[in-house]
């Protein structure tokens, strides 16, 4: 009964946090704890409903083929009977959205809980929770959307919340700029996405996901292959920015300016996976366009590798995590690109747990160290903060892909899928990335939690509101992958596009990934833990100083954008403005001035001398006479425009 209720009322899932947002903003803002409880409570309730609904979905195999959709008209234009444009909003429940719903609400609940401890005593505590609630609500709305425009709405709202949360420390200029960067970068990509959505609407006349899926399956009736390819590429532009794919990943590392729970929320559960989710949701589109799939795969693989290389040299704990997120998202994209919705969603699931865990752990460290973020200045934290440290280690193991932790299974699934599709180069890139991931993650872990203690630090274990989420998530980071082992994969059964496509267990690939992970951890160990003076690391940096500088400066992409923004955009704006005030306005003012000058000029005739007046009078007579003589009847026809 509860399950049935949850299935039919899944719209409550986003609605509850949204209500919490409204309530906090208008009612409970002065009472901090009440606000926090409202936020956490609403999200927890959503989580319960989501879980119930997911239970309903995952116990009935019909929903795989035929999603549960209920929708209502949002607005329509044209004749009511036969509208020219109708947009519905509604809920679409199938295994994919059910899984996402559970994941998002579950992770969010714990991040919210964690925030109570983390944000304790900060200015704008209640406001923070209202933003968090809105963020959660938007993301959940995105997940359950049955319509592409509805999804876009939620997509943008997520962007807004990220803007608000990244820029939460309003007094910091860096936070302000980072927030703006996040929004604008996403906006640029959304332009493409919007064009894609528009094209879909125009070509297929609907934006309902299910209908689109049916129509695109035989798109030849509506459009050409070329147009469809264009649409697919345009749609993919949105996820490029939202999921931090190259070259629009630049906002993601900067997004660390927000409070750490925000980073966790953005990176683990909500915003960045939205892009992957969108591509997954529109697989029917990409599926028809192999070249677009190719693009997705290549972008994903390249981003994974690219971000991993940057992460090697970064010093700030959250920056490293940020680049690792970019890299992991690359994996998910790669999986989608090779056509494996299964692997992608699986990885998203596991990633949510271990990445949330690691961010929260990083937050815990930051609180303890009073926001000192450089890993080189940490060290030996494991003694003072055991829970944080060991849960972080679990996260590290998971992301590095050590069995039986969660990350291993999903990453393996991706590698296998890539291999199975015959993308050997991409496979090599992904495999190498796995090695790098293990290396930089463990570099960070060794530097921060092990080794010598830094005497300047006086760390202290965090309160229970922060550690409980860590523990819970750590359990997830360990066990979340067991649902998807190659021998019994829930995802393969429930979440796939077209037909179930689960590659059989490939022990070779499995071995390879384990070896790579161990090698990465080992290298990190030798360089950063065993070598207490870090001589090797420094030598490396000096030996390859050019490469090192390029990596530290993130391939100078930020600088490139900055230059573009300042020199090109601002310069062009200036030119436009000057054109406006001197040319366009100049013409306007010129006309006005010429009227004045003419007036002044004509005034000169009025000399005050009577006889001049007489003279002018008779000149006038002459002129009129001439006019009369020459403008005869034949010429009296209309001079302009008159049509009798």
């Amino acid at each position, binding site marked *: 009964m509860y399950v049935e209720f949850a299935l039919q009322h899944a719209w409550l899932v986003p609605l509850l946090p949204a209500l919490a947002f409204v309530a906090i903003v208008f009612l409970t803002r002065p009472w901090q704890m009440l606000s926090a409880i409202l936020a956490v409570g609403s999200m927890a309730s959503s989580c319960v409903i989501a879980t119930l609904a997911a239970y309903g979905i995952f116990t009935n195999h019909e929903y795989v083929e035929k999603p549960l959709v209920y929708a209502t008209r949002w607005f329509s234009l044209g004749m009511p009977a036969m509208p020219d444009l109708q947009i519905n909003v509604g809920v679409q429940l199938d295994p994919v959205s059910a899984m996402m719903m559970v994941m998002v609400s579950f992770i969010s609940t714990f991040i919210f809980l964690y925030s109570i401890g983390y944000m304790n005593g900060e200015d704008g505590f209640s406001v923070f929770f209202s933003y968090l609630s809105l963020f959660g609500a938007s993301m959940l709305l995105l997940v359950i959307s049955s319509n592409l425009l509805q999804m876009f709405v939620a997509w943008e709202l997520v962007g807004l919340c990220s803007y608000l949360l990244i820029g939460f420390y309003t007094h910091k200029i860096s936070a302000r700029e980072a927030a703006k960067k996040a929004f604008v970068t996403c906006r640029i990509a959304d332009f493409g996405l919007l064009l894609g959505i528009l094209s879909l609407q125009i070509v297929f006349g609907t934006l309902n996901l299910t209908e689109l899926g049916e129509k695109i399956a035989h798109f030849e009736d509506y459009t050409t292959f070329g147009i469809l390819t264009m649409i697919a590429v345009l749609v993919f532009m949105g996820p490029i920015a939202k999921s931090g794919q190259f070259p629009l990943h630049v906002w993601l590392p900067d997004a660390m300016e927000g409070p750490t729970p925000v980073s966790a929320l953005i990176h683990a559960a909500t915003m960045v996976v939205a892009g992957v989710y969108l591509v997954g949701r529109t697989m029917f589109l990409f599926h028809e366009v192999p070249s677009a799939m190719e693009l997705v795969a290549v972008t994903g693989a390249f981003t994974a590798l690219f971000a991993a290389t940057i992460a090697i040299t970064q010093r700030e704990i959250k920056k490293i995590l940020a680049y690792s997120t970019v890299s992991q998202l690359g994996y998910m994209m790669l999986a989608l690109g090779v056509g494996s919705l299964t692997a992608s969603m699986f990885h998203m699931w596991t990633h949510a747990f271990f990445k949330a865990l690691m961010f929260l752990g990083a937050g815990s460290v930051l609180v303890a160290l009073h926001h000192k973020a450089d890993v080189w200045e940490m060290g030996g934290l494991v003694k003072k903060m055991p829970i944080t440290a060991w849960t972080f280690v679990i996260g590290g193991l998971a992301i590095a892909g050590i069995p039986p932790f969660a990350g291993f299974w999903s990453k393996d699934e991706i590698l296998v899928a890539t291999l199975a599709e015959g993308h050997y180069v991409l496979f090599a890139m992904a495999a190498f990335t796995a090695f790098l991931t293990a290396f930089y993650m463990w570099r960070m872990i060794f530097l921060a939690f092990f080794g010598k203690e830094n005497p300047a630090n006086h760390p202290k274990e965090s309160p229970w509101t922060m550690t409980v989420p860590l523990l819970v998530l750590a359990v997830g980071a360990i066990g979340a992958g067991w649902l998807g082992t190659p021998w019994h994969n829930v995802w393969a059964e429930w979440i796939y596009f077209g037909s179930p496509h689960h590659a059989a267990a490939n022990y070779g690939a499995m071995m390879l990934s384990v070896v790579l992970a161990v090698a990465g951890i080992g290298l990190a160990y030798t360089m950063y833990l065993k070598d207490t003076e870090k001589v090797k690391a420094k030598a490396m940096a000096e030996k390859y100083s050019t490469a090192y500088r390029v990596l530290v400066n993130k391939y100078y992409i930020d600088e490139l954008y900055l230059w573009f923004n300042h020199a090109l955009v601002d310069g062009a704006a200036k030119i436009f403005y000057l054109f406006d005030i001197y040319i366009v306005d100049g013409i306007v003012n010129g006309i006005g001035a010429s009227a004045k000058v003419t007036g002044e000029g004509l005034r000169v005739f009025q000399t005050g001398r009577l006889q001049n007046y007489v003279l002018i009078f008779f000149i*006038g007579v002459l002129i009129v006479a001439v*006019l009369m003589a020459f403008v005869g009847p034949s010429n*009296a026809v209309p001079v302009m425009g008159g049509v009798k």
Partner: protein
Amino acid sequence: MPADMFALTLPFDPSALTLEMLMAGLAMLVLILGIIVPKGARHGLGWVSLLGILGIMAVAVSLWGEKRELLNGMYLLDNYALFWKITFMTAAALVILGCMRFVDNMGNQAEYYSLTLFATLGMMVMASAGDFITFYLGLELMTLSFVILVCFRKTDAKSVEAGIKYLLLAGMSSAVLLYGLTLIYGLTGSITILEIGRIIAMQPLSPALVLAVVLVIAGLGFKVSAVPFHMWSPDVYEGAPTPVTAYLAVGSKAASFAIILRLFVSGLPGIWENWAMVMAILAAVTIIVGNLVAIPQTNIKRMLAYSSIAQAGYILVGLVTATEAGIKGVMFYCFLYVFATMAAFVVATYYYNVSGSDELRDYAGLAQRSPLLAAVMLVALLSMAGIPPLAGFAGKFYLFSSIVGDFLWLVFVGLIMSMVSVYYYLRVALVMYRDDPVDATPISVSSPVAVTLVFATIATLVIGICPGPLSEVVNGAAHTFFLH
């Protein structure tokens, strides 16, 4: 029968001249009363004139619908003429009511009022004129009365200079006009306008007739101050006492239009094709020059003079097509023009009494000293500019809708320039409203002036918002124009 021996048998019914006789009587009465009553009581002469005019207006209204033709078309009484007469008398009444204090300051009230009434009489004669003699007599009666009025402040050099300029130029233009009229007489053998119309329609066009028409256009163009025959008007308007300027701008112009319509639409329709384009060009030039030269003016009377030149241009537009719609436009516009112009000049007069200046800059802060004066001035100016919902808009709508078919370019010129005119009108608003007054004492407006201003403003607003009733009246009047 013995009684019959003394009975004078007139070839016409003198009752058709009731209005004119009454007006002449009134003017005489005022003149005589001026001699009889003591100096202190001459203030009352204004009221006598005013009441007299109102009485005559009542008679005029009662005559509405009459249609007479005296002495073979020498004198015409129809709704057309009546409408004009009412227009003139309205203007006279407003100017008398609004400017009493100014006149009292000048002294010689009896002469002033009787001359005003004589000028009105001249206009009334012009409105009814059916032949050249009546026309000329009315015109000269009006002009000479105005000449005296213009230099009424004979100790003021400006006033006298304006007087001499007006006299000499008006005399010269009368000569030109007369010369043209005599040529027409020579060519047609008639001086009755309606008959001339019939004869000309049958004749081929001769160069002499063209010359005659040119001279007539020049002579009458002078009266309505159409460019390039307008040179006198800024000087005279500026130099004359303000009430005189007001009446000159309204009455003299309206009367001239009354006769221009008669002459051109009844008398010269046969050669319409020849003069239509000339009129259109004259109108365009008048509109453009009047508005553009008004822009740099700093004296409010001079600015109003140029603006009234532009207004003459607008009114000329109605003449171009020589149709009933055009005549109606002219009449409608002249009628509402009375209120706007009177309001503006009465404000100028009253403010001159207070501040002794007509310079625009001295109007600073008028809105704070007297909201009424400032508001009335603004409404009047905007009505002249044709901004809805003021009367000028409806007037321009009628005028320009009469020519839209063949003279679209003129519509453009007229409407665009009327928007340009807002530029200098708003400069007055700027000074009145934005600036703070040098002397912030409130101006108390005496009740006759207030009544004048409020009446004129309300009329402007009502005609603007609801032009329907007036429009129907004018339609009726314009319709009778063609019934002779």
